[in-house]
């Protein structure tokens, strides 16, 4: 019974947002404006597709998906390096999303089928367990992710060091969200009027991290949770800021997200990691947008430990992931979408990760239901 009541409440609230957004759309149209709101994070992309949120938006408001899927922006050369390590008999521990991402030639799933040891983890701590159970070899954890994921991975490394476990290393491709956003916002070819900022990343970096976008570039920012109503509320808030020409950072998730972020997690990250230039698949190299292990922890760096040299890797030249990630085209505008490229045989990473824009659109929208 409670389910039904809860269901109706949600429907009520949602139809309220539908009306409000329609009214805002009318006002925008009156002003002759159309606005582009970017959801920064893959979890938002997913939820938007899964709950059919585009359905709620009037024509004057378009939603573009940002670069917020850590798997999608991982360079193919990184996958190649992981496959090389698997070939050397190491146990590769990874979040499941990485399994089917195409490297230059094959994927980790294919490496596993060919006998490589690739273990899917739900938590970085699984790497420690694997290392304990397999003292004869080394566990290489694929340390991919944004601030949300970096914090728990660094906590795992901290535990590894404290417990003097020496058969765990990290293959890092950590990325920081703010430098990528700065690059996108500064790109004159891309119109971004508002940013729907992810609650979990913001919980680490703090809502203040977005202030420069509002203050210097006039971009509206709302920190929003991942429930469908949170997202609708966030989109309504962004539109309102723009209608009033009053862009600022609105933290709708104040319960969890502090202005300054999670200081403890930041300290731990600073202790182990240093900013470095990083290559984003589709976006190119962005200065100081990555985090790497500090030299004093190099022995936990798989690249250093095994002397492998990750090369940039080869991207399928026809894949438009870069344009999708920048929000320049919708996935369905890629000529390969759903034809040569679909979730069973992804050509680009945006089709692999469940959070990728192409996968989300293929799965849930297919050109609009």
């Amino acid at each position, binding site marked *: 019974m409670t*389910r*039904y009541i809860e*269901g*109706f409440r*949600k*429907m009520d*609230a*949602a*139809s309220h947002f*539908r009306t409000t957004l329609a009214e805002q759309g009318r006002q925008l149209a009156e002003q002759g404006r159309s606005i582009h709101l970017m959801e920064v994070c*893959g*979890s938002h992309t*997913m939820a938007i*597709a*899964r*709950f*059919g*949120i*585009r*359905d*709620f938006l009037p024509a004057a408001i378009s939603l573009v998906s940002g670069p917020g899927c*850590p*798997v999608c922006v991982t360079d193919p050369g990184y996958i190649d390096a992981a496959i090389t390590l698997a070939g050397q008999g190491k146990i590769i521990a990874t*979040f*499941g*999303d*990485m*399994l*089917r991402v195409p490297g230059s030639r094959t994927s980790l799933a294919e490496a596993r089928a060919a006998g490589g040891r690739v273990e*899917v*983890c*739900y938590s970085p701590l699984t790497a420690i367990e694997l290392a304990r159970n397999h003292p004869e070899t080394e566990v290489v954890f694929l340390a*991919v*992710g*944004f601030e*949300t*994921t970096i914090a728990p991975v660094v906590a795992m490394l901290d535990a590894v060091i404290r417990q003097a476990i020496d058969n765990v290393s990290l293959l890092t491709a950590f990325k920081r969200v703010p430098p990528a956003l700065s690059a996108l916002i500064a790109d004159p070819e891309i119109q971004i009027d508002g940013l729907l900022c992810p609650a*979990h990343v913001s919980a680490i970096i703090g809502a203040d991290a977005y202030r420069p976008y509002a203050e210097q570039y006039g971009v509206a920012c709302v920190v929003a949770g991942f429930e*469908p*109503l949170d997202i*609708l509320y966030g989109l309504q808030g962004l539109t309102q800021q723009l209608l009033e020409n009053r862009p600022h950072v609105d933290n709708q998730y104040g319960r969890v997200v502090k202005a300054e972020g999670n200081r403890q997690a930041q300290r731990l990250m600073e202790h182990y990691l240093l900013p470095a230039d990083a290559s984003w698949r589709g976006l190119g190299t962005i200065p100081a947008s990555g985090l790497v292990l500090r030299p004093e922890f190099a022995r936990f760096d798989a690249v250093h430990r095994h002397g492998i040299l990750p090369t940039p890797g080869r991207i399928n030249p026809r894949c438009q992931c870069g344009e999708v990630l920048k929000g320049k085209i919708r996935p369905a505008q890629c000529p390969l979408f759903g034809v040569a490229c*679909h*979730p*069973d045989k992804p050509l680009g990473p945006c089709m692999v*990760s*469940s*959070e990728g824009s192409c996968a989300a659109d*293929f*799965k*849930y*929208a*297919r050109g609009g*239901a």
Partner: protein
Amino acid sequence: MNDCVLLGHGGGGRLSHQLIEQEIVARFGQGPLQTLPDAATLELDSRRICFTTDSFVVHPLEFPGGNIGDLAVHGTVNDLAVSGARPRWLSLGLILEEGLPLATLRRVLDSVQRAAEQCEVAVVTGDTKVVRRGQCDGLYINTSGIGEAIPGFALSLSRVGLGDCILVSGPLGDHGAAVLSAREGFQMQNGPLSDSRPVHRLVQSVADLAADIRFMRDPTRGGLATVLNEMTAGQSYGIRIRARDLPFSPGTNALAEMLGLDLLHVASEGCLVLLCAESVAAAILARWQALPEGVDARAIGRVTDQAGRVILETAIGGQRVVDVPSGELLPRIC
């Protein structure tokens, strides 16, 4: 006797004989299996039979709510039931890994026995092989089943019409979620419990309404999404379901939230999806809800004119396509 399965248990000699006598005949030897003939001889009442086979591979072998033994019975019984048959006989093929604890084997066979009794089917023939350690994951089971067609059922998607109703008999995704949480060692209080159970009574309870029942399926691998897509593929109609009418158990829901799983893609092993004329939907629901395995039965949607499309009206009233899952269920990064 040693407490694990040995290669010798499959060698055809004294050890094999012992295993068969003590573990198999002791449990299933009342009927045709008693004298271990090469083939079972069965007497049929009807001229139409349904025949099916399935292999069961699950890790871990035991999970909250069941084990591979009851799963192997329910899986085949349910395949027969949703074809409109009354399940009668099963075969039981075992592939055992050297080193499997006999205690585990016994628990699994006890479950087979209990489940078969509950489903009123007899295990009438079987086979046991032992493979070297590492060549299988503990224990694999194959069951084939024969059922007698229940008169009146004429299940066919060609009979589906606009406005027909889609019903489900219980919560979705419990089995897949339970196995996943057991495999990954999640310590969840009130976590997911497998729904491994037979659906044959649900089918038999509506046999007199068979003329208005178009189609039945149990949403195992690939979940409800896969079944609905099978129902609409290449058809002139589509299906629309409503998120707020979908039944889910709280523990399963919690796990799905945690891992970002779409429960429409997760397997059930004791749930029935039925497509019927609107005129009989209420009666079917009432019959199901009177049975313990059907208390959570719901009408979840209808047949529409959107050819080949399965659309979900989401919890907030948006809409989206329900697609089949691709490949394995993989946990997301964040």
